[in-house]
């Protein structure tokens, strides 16, 4: 468990860092997929097997393909110079490093009320019950949101022209 955690954490954070630092945006997209799979492995370590499956399907599959399509539809010119830093990169690095330190200190200082109960063995059934009973309205709202986003994305990308 301990060794697995460190291996997964190093692979995930390392590929996330490579994704941010790479100058070629297509390599960045490939490292992003490795990061998403690493996050799915983290879910497995947290005994959330359904979440891991959703992560691999939605992030490792759908969103990665979306991003690759976006790169292919927009990129012109030199691919090796397609993902450069802007002029405020040093300031962003300072902010990010400060936030890492602040977050670490606060997490270690807080007294977490960790429960001692054994982790549940089955996850899919209880999640389904919660989604279709207690959270049925957010569930339907999410469905409408996905429909609206689908139609909106098609209309924005298609550029509706006036016929008159």
């Amino acid at each position, binding site marked *: 468990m301990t060794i697995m955690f460190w291996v997964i954490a190093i692979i995930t*954070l390392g590929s996330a860092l490579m994704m941010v630092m790479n100058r070629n*945006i297509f390599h960045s997209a490939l490292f992003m997929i490795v990061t998403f799979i690493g996050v799915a492995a*983290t879910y497995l370590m*947290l005994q959330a097997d359904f979440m891991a499956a959703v992560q691999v399907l939605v992030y490792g599959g759908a969103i990665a393909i979306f991003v690759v399509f976006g790169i292919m539809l927009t990129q012109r010119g030199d691919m090796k110079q397609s993902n*450069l830093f802007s002029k405020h990169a040093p300031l962003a690095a300072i902010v990010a490093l400060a936030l890492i330190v602040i977050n670490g200190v606060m997490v270690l200082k807080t007294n977490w009320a960790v429960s001692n109960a054994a982790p549940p063995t089955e996850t899919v059934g209880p999640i389904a019950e919660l989604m279709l009973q207690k959270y049925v309205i957010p569930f339907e709202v999410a469905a409408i949101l996905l429909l609206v*986003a689908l139609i909106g994305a098609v209309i924005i990308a298609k550029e509706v022209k006036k016929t008159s």
Partner: protein
Amino acid sequence: MIGLQHFLIFSGTLFCIGLFGALAKRNAIAILMGLELMLNAVNINLVAFSRYITTGDFTGQVFAIFVIAVAAAEVAVGLALIVAIYRDRISVNVEDFDWLKW
């Protein structure tokens, strides 16, 4: 022994890497990728809390699924906007996007 703190520090570091990517990149698609990393870090937090603090209650995982749905909608609309802007300007460099500047 690996506990809640390890997962929280891990997800916080992932969030900050995503934040750095979103703040420091020039390509609009790279900024979207940084946002996805930040949303993933938030999901790890939700699942870790549901595992260690409210064990047996799956509300955290249900909310993580809602976050994934919203993130999918966001990336679809964001990429459609980037493609539409690219057709207009032949560029995905956010420093060239100056319509909303004062």
